[in-house]
């Protein structure tokens, strides 16, 4: 038993950390709910036939005048809040995860190469990263959005909104990956196993991805979780500002933007429920990221 627990020390730490358990629960439920939204949601916010205006502005069940069918109430169009959030989280997560993947591939690739080759290549990549870092993420997103509007024909603009948004988020996140990958690669380059591989005459690509990458994966995984939270938040921000997705494809940010109109009108739930959900999701993912970092870095324990 003892040997078993020792072997899976991460698991042991997890079981003994209530914060991590709650965070994991929130995150996993959100992921499952988002993935199976079409099957578990009461209504489909994209399908006008599935909801009725007569159900509009119903409060959550614990308030007067509620319909027990809609546990967290409905919005002005009669859409069930839970369904909207599930679909919203679905879109937010799809955008967040794909942006994260693009950023990870781009950032880790460039960072590894910069650390491996060093010198001029490293200098160029890192200066680009510095410039990128100097621009706030929202500005980058606005820029890409503006360019997309300018060069794409209006007919396909609506269809490509998700892609443009994803790209904008990815471009503002890759720097983190590149910097971490580069710094870790520098450390590994001095290790003798890397020198042995270079001495053998192995191809740089193989040295980088077969030898170095597995050894720098720990910090990268941590960044990935923390950056997933940033990606989701960034998407929400952009959608809230109206440069992200149109109102008819409700991501979490769009839901919050729509809910803003009801802030002072008594129908508080339309704004607050998606907002609190977003906060809970982002905080959970961040807690998980911190937890992962603790596992990978025994000195902080």
């Amino acid at each position, binding site marked *: 038993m003892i040997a078993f*627990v*020792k072997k899976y020390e991460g698991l042991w730490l997890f079981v003994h950390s209530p914060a991590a358990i709650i965070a994991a629960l929130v995150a996993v439920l959100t992921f499952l709910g988002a993935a199976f939204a079409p099957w578990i949601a009461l209504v489909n916010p994209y399908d006008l036939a599935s909801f009725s205006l007569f159900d509009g502005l119903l409060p959550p069940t614990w308030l007067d005048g509620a319909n027990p069918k809609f546990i967290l109430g409905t919005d002005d169009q009669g859409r069930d809040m839970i369904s909207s959030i599930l679909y919203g989280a679905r879109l937010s997560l799809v955008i967040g995860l794909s942006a994260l993947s693009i950023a990870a591939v781009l950032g880790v690739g460039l960072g590894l190469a910069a650390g491996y080759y060093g010198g001029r290549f490293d200098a160029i990549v890192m200066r680009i990263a510095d410039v990128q870092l100097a621009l706030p993420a929202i500005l980058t997103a606005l820029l890409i959005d503006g360019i997309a509007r300018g060069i794409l024909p209006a007919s396909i603009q609506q269809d490509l909104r998700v892609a443009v948004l994803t790209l904008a988020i990815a471009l503002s996140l890759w720097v983190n990956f590149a910097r971490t990958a580069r710094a870790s690669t520098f450390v590994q380059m001095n290790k*003798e*196993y890397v*020198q*042995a591989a*270079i*001495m053998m*005459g192995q191809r740089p690509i193989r040295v980088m991805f077969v030898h170095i990458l597995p*050894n720098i994966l720990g910090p990268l995984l941590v960044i990935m979780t923390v950056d997933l939270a940033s990606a989701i938040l960034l998407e929400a921000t952009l959608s809230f500002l109206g440069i992200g997705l149109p109102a008819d494809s409700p991501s979490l940010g769009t839901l919050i933007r729509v809910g803003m109109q009801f802030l002072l009108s008594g129908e508080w739930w339309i704004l607050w429920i998606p907002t609190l959900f977003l906060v809970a999701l982002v905080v959970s993912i961040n807690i998980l990221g911190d937890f992962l970092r603790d596992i990978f870095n025994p000195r902080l324990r």
Partner: protein
Amino acid sequence: MLTIKDLLVKFPMRFGAFTAIEDVDMTIKPGEIHGLVGESGAGKSTVGAAVIGLLQSPGYVANGTLTLGDTDLRNLSPAEAHKVRGDRISMIFQDPQTSLNPLMTIERQLIETIQTHSSLSESEAINRAVDLLEDIGIKNAAERIKAYPHQFSGGMRQRVVIALAISTDPELIIADEPTTALDVAVQSQVLDLIQRLAKERQIAFMLITHDIGVIAQVADRVTVMRKGRVMETGVTAQVLGKPQHHYTQQLMDSVPPLDRKIDRFRVPEADDTIASNGAMAENWLLEGSQHARTGLSLTGLSVEFAGPRTSIFRKLPPYVALDDVTLNIKPGSIMGLVGESGSGKSTLAKAITGLVTPSSGTMELGDVVLPYGKSRSRQHPSRQLIQMVFQDPYSSLNSRHRIGDILTEPLWFYGFVKDEQEREKLAASMLSLVGMQPDAISKYPHQFSGGQRQRIAVARALLARPRFLICDEPTSALDVSIQAEILNLLKDLQAKFGLTILFISHNLAVVRQMADDTAVLRSGKIEEVGETNALYTAPQADYTKSLLDLTPVMPTTWQT
């Protein structure tokens, strides 16, 4: 006088407690240098930390008595303990680089310590600091005291650390590996200083070290520890000269002597190593070594590193790491290369393997001229013929790869064996050839000890079917008994397969045991090359002579 009785130190862990040291008894009289010797994990440093009250948490003294004079060190309040530390007990650490504050002048650090422990005024403290520095052999102390630590050399820095330690007139100084990071010449000066201070100031020293030569040279009494227990204790000449305990005997057998060559170290085969069979790997290697033995000759090899650019227009002159090195390594022989840190030993290895680009000179492996650094193509035959065993077995194996993957990589890469299962079989056989269980193949590097990892590293090098092997300090990260095993292994393999070896080490005694010829390197220049025996018995260059003189050895009369 320090008295330790039945000392027991425990580290509580998540599951039970780990006993770091147990039943340790020791007394150190004023003016006595008491050596504490043992291999890594023996608990030497824990004894020192327990005495000074700086056990790493969560460790604690579970039992026993610790008294200094008539003070009970175990029952001190934190404030009293703080006062005892520094006032009565001082400590000298291994690395003078990190035990001095780089942002404070030597003067400030000394004054700070002096004023904390006495009521001297600023100017009195300065006078005292200067006197101290003069006393420990720093000339022009009044001027040099204004310098920062980085302006001193390593040996000078360690002297300053010693000055800090004695600035409060302590009764006991705990020196934890005080000379391990220093070169032999500096080491001997620091040891002399310690001896002088013990005699003149009647300070008791606890000298913790893994180097038996150092103990033999300066310690009055010695305690041999192993796995947290005292094996043997007594007068140095008695314990080291006529060891009673078989562990001490074993330890002494593993120490390479400087003044003679022994064929093999008498080390018992450990439980986890098996009699080497690995016939399959042996045959495979012999098949590969059919072609002639290969020598290496270097002619006028120079390596320069570009100086740092201080401004756009000014660049400091290049740093010359190797200066006109000419060396001829005979086919099938072992060439030893000795030198102090920074002498360019590793740079030479890197130039041969192509990791560093020389600025001039030629390198010839057999009759093939080796292209410089990056201009050597990835397919160049020398990439297979030259292999290297690195110093640090903890970083030379990729910790995320299975041992099997590490070992089969050269077989796959050089295209020796096409079939994957065949490769695994050969790798397993090679493991038994280097004295390990073949089932190690499915494990990961962290599951092995340093010595075992070094065996794996040797196996990896052999699986490339090399003709020329570079061993860069292959044993300096290992304990002395493990060192003896690895040296035996290298000797056996060299004899069996007729390898040509460049054996790099800072340890003259080790090189004497291994090498047919020896070259002495100093600041990038070859001082002397010659047949090992001749070079050690009748060194020509003054530098070689002083190196040999200063290396701490056991008096010849002790040898059994």
